[in-house]
């Protein structure tokens, strides 16, 4: 592994690298977070002209949509593109690629050690340079910022697992004035040729991230302890999802829920009049719309083992249900029985697509 060190702020350094890639024609487009100069709002942009890079904010602590989900719309790409993704967005993209919703072909993946993203509420109420500065101070010191998403605070996979290029942010005390870019793969080395000073041969310095890793582990324990009022059970599950409006926003923004027509929005599980009559006969009252719990637990059955804990679902929920906390916790447990880590390796099959002849005998009676 090798590293390029630049004498400028991380975001500026990365922007220059993107400029080099685009300017030299090594890539024909850059996919990155942007801040629109006119509206001041964040979005994701696919940029083909060097001038367009003026607006990119590749390292901003913002997730408008899970970029791994958005990237699907134009990957596989006919020409090489450079994409900047948060570690969980990259994992989500790999999960999607396994479901044939994209491919890593022609893609140079750039990621960063990630201090988490600010909640959407915080982002839409406006981020000035003071707020970004405050966030960066925490990130560069290896601390958790209080306004990041709950699942970010508890995320242990903040070092990208398989990015071609990693920008060091977490615990990187000088990241405000220096930029450290790790070239993890041959492709990265090839692409970075002719850019900046000569790379030094250096492995990623794990001591930078250890501090945050242990803080996050403690946060995770706290978060999981509080899920389902800390006790679980039917009443606790009803309590948790009782506020659900049934908008299905959580599944719409989930990078793993890729189905064009969701099973739970199809006619497959529609209830007819005789059903309502029977329910009323039994219970004397009925909550409408029905099947809220069926939707949530059903979604867990469909995708929990692939949940990357990005937090999008919680962030969009109009009823403030901590959807992501529940899915992250449950997903970790369903993934664990298959020793599966979502997005770890594109060659690792989705658990429900494969089987071994001898396994899970403990589930059979």
């Amino acid at each position, binding site marked *: 592994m090798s590293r390029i060190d630049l004498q400028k702020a991380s975001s500026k350094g990365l922007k220059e690298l993107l400029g080099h890639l685009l300017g030299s024609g090594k890539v024909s487009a850059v996919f990155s977070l942007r801040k629109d100069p006119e509206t001041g709002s964040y979005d994701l942009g696919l940029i083909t002209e060097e001038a367009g890079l003026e607006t990119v904010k590749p390292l901003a602590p913002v997730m408008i949509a899970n970029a791994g989900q958005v990237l699907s719309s134009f990957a596989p790409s006919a020409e090489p593109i450079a994409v900047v993704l948060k570690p969980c967005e990259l994992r989500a993209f790999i999960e999607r690629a396994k479901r044939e919703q994209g491919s890593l072909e022609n893609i140079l993946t750039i990621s960063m050690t990630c201090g988490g993203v600010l909640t959407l509420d915080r982002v839409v109420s406006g981020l000035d340079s003071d707020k970004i500065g405050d966030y960066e101070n925490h990130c560069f010191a290896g601390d958790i910022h209080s306004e990041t998403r709950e699942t970010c605070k508890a995320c242990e996979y903040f070092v990208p697992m398989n990015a071609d290029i990693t920008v060091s942010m977490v615990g990187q005390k000088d990241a405000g004035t220096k930029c450290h870019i790790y070239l993890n793969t041959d492709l990265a080395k090839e692409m970075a040729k002719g850019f900046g000073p000569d790379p030094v041969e250096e492995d990623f310095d794990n001591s930078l991230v250890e501090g945050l890793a242990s803080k996050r582990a403690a946060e995770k324990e706290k978060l999981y302890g509080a899920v389902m009022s800390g006790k679980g059970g039917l009443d606790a599950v009803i309590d948790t999802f009782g506020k659900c409006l049934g908008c299905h926003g959580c599944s719409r923004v989930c990078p793993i829920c890729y189905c064009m027509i969701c099973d739970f929005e199809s006619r497959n599980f529609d209830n007819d009049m005789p059903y309502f009559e029977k329910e009323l006969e039994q219970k004397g009252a009925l909550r409408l719309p029905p099947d809220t*719990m069926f939707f949530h637990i059903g979604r867990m*059955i469909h995708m929990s083992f692939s949940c990357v804990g990005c937090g999008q679902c919680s962030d969009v929920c109009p009823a403030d249900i901590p959807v992501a906390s529940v899915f992250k916790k449950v997903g970790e447990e369903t993934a664990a029985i*298959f020793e599966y880590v979502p997005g770890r390796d594109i060659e690792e099959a989705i658990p429900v697509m494969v089987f071994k002849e001898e396994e899970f005998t403990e589930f059979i009676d």
Partner: protein
Amino acid sequence: MEKTFVPRITSFLCTWCSYTGADLAGTGRMQYPTAIIPIKVMCSSRVDPVFILKAYLKGSDGVFLGGCHPGDCHYEVGNYHTRRRFAIVKKIFESLGLEAERLRLSWISASEGPKFARVANEFTEKIIEMGENEAKKKIFL
């Protein structure tokens, strides 16, 4: 007089093994509880795992899945998939603190009439011990 609790156990049985096993139990005049409500499916893998959830949320006191022994599935690998899906549902129930013991998967071949009767009795007893599925009374579901 108190009504005795007769549970309802939604039972998905694959036509090639477990359903035939149940038939054999019947023709052999082996007793098994009326709690078992059989639904014939072509293969245990026809049981979409959300069916299990649906049955539970609609108030089934137990949900039973019967399939061919590993290696014997009429469609060769169906039951291997069933096993993984079932493991996922079980794990989710455990993780949410729902009563995972109300769900059961057993392999029962076409010649195992006695096994079918035994499993049906065993599971029914267990469910009677556990009592009614609370979900039955929840308006929210």
